[in-house]
Structure formats: structure tokens, C-alpha cells
């Protein structure tokens, strides 16, 4: 099953020429979650059972989505954003991060600004012209800074 929403994509949602819509292949009706490493070092005190953990912060949060494009042109436009920072727009409340929610044509989208398209992999071109791939998005995120 795929989730279709015309304003899911990557780029500048306010400038159509610079926005690349895509479809997300949702498995069992769910999206993957953002993943993030806590940067820490734990050391044991010599001769003791006590330890100290120093937390430097959190590494970048990453989200890998299975994407689907109608044709090669659409994929090429998306691929042109490889390694750039823009806004990731997804259906609202399907991700564990909090973004800016905008309602367009009755559908709620959640937008994540300053997101880096850091990887495109597993590109598969089908005979019907569609293109599938896995795309990894990355953003700076500190869960402690979020007010519940």
C-alpha cells in the first residue's frame, strides 16, 4: 500500500519549481522512524562498580524512507537535490519528530526545515517507467529541547 499526498516531497514547498514531490511506500500503514545516536562516553572508575557517563549531545537524526516516483524525470529532479539542505514535507503525525503542520487541500502535512538529503540508494527502475529508491534524510534534533 502506498500513501499518496501530492505535497509530500523535498525542496521549497513555497516554490513549486523547486519542490520535488514523491510517494512513500508505507509498510503496514506506518512510516519508518527517525533514528538518532546519543553521543556519550562511559568509563568505569578503577577498583569500583561506579561509572561516569559524559553526554556530549545527540548526533544527527536520520530517517530512511522507501520512495516512489512516477517517472524518471520526477526522480531526476529529486536526485538533483542530493547533498542539499531543504524542507522535508511528510504526512502529518506519521513521524516521531515534531515539524510545522500545514493543511493543504484538507490534508495535514508536517514540514521539517533544514533537512539534508544525505543518501539515495537501492534505485530500481521498473519497465512501467516508475522509479523506486531509498532516501535518507538528516536533521539536527535535540529531544531535550522539545516542549511536550
Amino acid at each position: 500500500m502506498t500513501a499518496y499526498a501530492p505535497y509530500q516531497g523535498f525542496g521549497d514547498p513555497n516554490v513549486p519549481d523547486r519542490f520535488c514531490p514523491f510517494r512513500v511506500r508505507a509498510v503496514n500503514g506506518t512510516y519508518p522512524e527517525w533514528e538518532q545516536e546519543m553521543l556519550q562516553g562511559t568509563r568505569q572508575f578503577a577498583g569500583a562498580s561506579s561509572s561516569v557517563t559524559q553526554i556530549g549531545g545527540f548526533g544527527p537524526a536520520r530517517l530512511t524512507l522507501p520512495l516512489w516516483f512516477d517517472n524518471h524525470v520526477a526522480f531526476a529532479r529529486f536526485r538533483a537535490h542530493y547533498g542539499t539542505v531543504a524542507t522535508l514535507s511528510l504526512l502529518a503525525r506519521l513521524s516521531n519528530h515534531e515539524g510545522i503542520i500545514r493543511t493543504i487541500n484538507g490534508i495535514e502535512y508536517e514540514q521539517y526545515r533544514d533537512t539534508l538529503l544525505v543518501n539515495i540508494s537501492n534505485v530500481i527502475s521498473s519497465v512501467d517507467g516508475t522509479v523506486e529508491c531509498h532516501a535518507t534524510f538528516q536533521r539536527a534534533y535535540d529531544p531535550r529541547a522539545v516542549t511536550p
Partner: protein
Amino acid sequence: MSAVVTMPAQTVLHPRLVVSVAGTPVSAFSFDAQHGVNQPVGTGSVTFPLPLPTSLMASDEALLNQRIEVQAGHDETAIRTVFSGRIDADRMEVDEREGTVTLQMRGWAALLEWEEEADLEFAGPIRLDEIIRSLCRWRGVPMTRIDPIVDHRNGLPIMLGGQIAQDEGSVIIPRRTSPLTWMTRMCRLFGYRLFDAPSGEIRVQRVSGMPVGPAVATYADAGNTFGMSRSRDLAGMATYWTVEGATVTDLDGVRMTVMSRPASVPYNPLLNPPGYRADRLSDRELVNHTLADAAREIAEIDHGAPTRSLRWEAVGDAWRSPGDVVRVRSHRIGEDGLSWLMSTRQRMEGPEYLVTCDAWRGGGTALSEMSDLQTVPLGAGPWHVGDEYVAWYQRPTPQGLFVPIPFTVPEEHTSVAVSGFVQGANSQIVNGTNTELKVSKIEFWQAGESVGSADLPVVPERTVQPFRVPLPNGIEAGNAELRPTSGSADFGNDDFELTSLVIELRGAGRPTLPVPRGW
């Protein structure tokens, strides 16, 4: 018997690193800073991602020799300056994945390093700490904390210079001598150190012997250290110190070397055989016995026990500085006491802020001084030298135009002088008036030959005055003869009388040394 088990604890800390270069904040990957009481200039490095802010990339001057400040710490404790100084060098590297720049930095004590082309002269006597304060101000050192430098025995300030016979009493840092090298040498003589502190100030403080509490921190095995080691070494140990200072010629013409030695050296089983170890130090700035004695006692205190070094690694602490007094505890090593924190290496690697510390304490004991001046009386006399009967002399009848007085010159000495009292030397009463002469002297003879002489002062008849004259440099150890000698003048030979003659020896004799045992 069951072991005592301490409840384990988990501590969570959040380190922070803030770096500013030429006043511009720049996010850094890592830093590494080294400070120590025996390392006057603090050093370190910081690594940043490329590109740096444009303002720092514009030219060599935009980055090199610019001020750099590193602040580190934890949210839970304190974030403080852990390095302040200037950028000495940089290295920029780029590869297929990333670009980084590493800056090498040096602390503010580097301002005291470079040599002047002219002598630096301070009118003496002058406090050593005042010289240091003046030089720091002159060289524009931004921050200092200079403790009074005092004699450890009585708390009186260490005063340099004031010896007229040397440099007219001035203290001189010769041209092409690094002021920093000179100051650290002087401080070390009296148990002090000059060094860059992590906070950015140049610090002068006592680091000698056993530290006196309270400790500012405790580091414990099975407590707050990741690892600890202790080493003890006899190699640097010395219990018999000879300190030589300035060699000066005093107003009487006697050439003396300031010297300090212990009266006796106790037996130490750690150095057996022979039960002691000798060492010496010399410095021309030790212009009197007070300074030489103070320096000797410091050497005895700091080197009279095995060199005891401790090292451990712990969570970084922005409050820690070399020179701190800390308590170090380890039952496994057998350590529990106060030590001087001698050096710190603070660094942030990834998410961890760590510090490696070195500590030390002196364990020797100051010894009583051996008096440098020994006197050998030659007798009360009197000795009447001349050819006339002089009624007012203690010995009116003359003994001859010269009077041989035997004495012995010791093997080891730094100076020998003759002193006593004299009447009527180089003076004749002519027509009822005392007339000055320059004919009578004391000659020195060895093996049947004259080896030198010294003029007697002019002392009028019927006047008794003290005198003191040096022995000549050519005199050797062994038997010798004083020959007070009457000189011939217009109205006959000069008669004079000597009493209470004494040979003054400096640098003679040896301390009582221990005897090896069991060998």
C-alpha cells in the same frame, strides 16, 4: 570476614566546549591543553572544521599570533577558561571526506621568553617578586598571580642584589638571556615556580616540600579516577648539598665565594652505601649567605627523599590547575596524602572531557648550616716590628725588621685572610706630627720564598685599629709564614705593633659525613 561493598553510583555529566579565536566564537571538534609547574609556557591544540569564518582566513595575520581562548567544563559543575594564549601555528588538511584545521597555541608566559639586546638592570637590593612583577608588566602579560617570594625559614622576602662588590649592587639579567629562563631559575632556587595556569594567568607560587592543606580536591582509586600509578625513584635523590654563590672581593680586598654547606649529613639507608649522595648547585645571584643557605635548604627539602610521582586520569575539571594541593588516595598503591599537582593535560575527545594529572611531593629535611667562616687564632701577641724602642707599645723592645709567624693553609678553601689589630703602621711622628707612609706590609712566605704581600693600613701612633688583608692567590695548602715587615722611610724604619692575629678561612673544612653500613 566479608568485604565492605560500596553502593555503585552512576554519574551523568554534560561537557561543554567553547572556543573563541581573535574574539570570534568558532565551533571546535576537540582540544588538548598542557600546563605544568615545570613547563613555564602552556601549550595546546584545537581542531575545527573547515572553512573557518571568513575573517580568520583573510591573511596570515588574521589567524596566526591571534588570541585564542578555550573554555570547557560541564553543565553540572563549571565552565571555565582552560587555556588562554596565542596561536603559534596552524595546519589545514582536506581529503575526500572532510576538511579540518588544527591550531597550535602557547600561553602568555611566551611573552617573557624572548631575549633583549641590552642588559636588564634592577637597582638592588630588590625583592625577587618585584622583579617578576615589573617584567610581566613591561612585557604586557595580561594576568598574573604572583605570591610573595619569601625565605621559607622566616617569611622574610627574598632580596636579590645589594652586594656592592658585584655589579655595584644591581641585579642584572644579561643581554641575550631569556627573562623567562632567568626568572624560572631564580624562583626554583627558593622553592617557587613560574608557569602558565589554565585560567590564563601567569602564576608564581611555592611548590616545594610537603604541601600544606587544605586540599582543593581528592582523587581516589575506587573513587573518581579511571586509573592511577605511582613511581618512586632514588635517582634524583641527594642529601648533601653544596651551594656556591657569587665570588666577590670585599672592601678589604679579600676575595670570597659565598658558600653554604650542612654541618653534618645524616645517614640514609636508601643511599647506602655510602649512606648519602652529594650534589651541588651554583648561581651568581646568591650574593650573600642568607640566600645561599635558603637555596641549600630548599634543595635538601626537595631532593632529600626519593622522587615520588603520581599519575592518574579523571573526568575533566575546569577548576584544576598545576600548583593546586590535592589529596591522592589509593589503598592498593599505599598512598594517602597531600601532593602538589605538578601538571595537567586537559582534553576533549568526542563527548568526553578528560584530564591526566601528575603530582609530586618533597620529603627531605633541611639541615643545619656549617659555618662558612672559620678562624684560626695565631695568638694574642704582641708582635713589635721595627728597630726602635717605643715606650707606649705593649712590647716596647722591637723584635726585628720582620717577624716570622708560622701557620698552616688548609687543603680546601675559597678564601683566606689575616685580621687583627695594629698600631702605628705606615706612620711616623715627625716634629710631633703623625706622618703617613706606605712602606710597611705583611709578606707571605712558603718554602723559603715570598709568594706575595699585602699593604698594612695607615694607623697613627698611639692608635690601635682593626685590620684585615687577603692572602695572595699564589699561596698553596701546607705550611706558610706571615712576615709582618717594617719598611724604610726618610726618618728611619717604620715601627708598628700587631696583636690578636687571626687567620680567617672560608670554604674550609667538610661536613661530617655518614659512614657506610654493612658493606
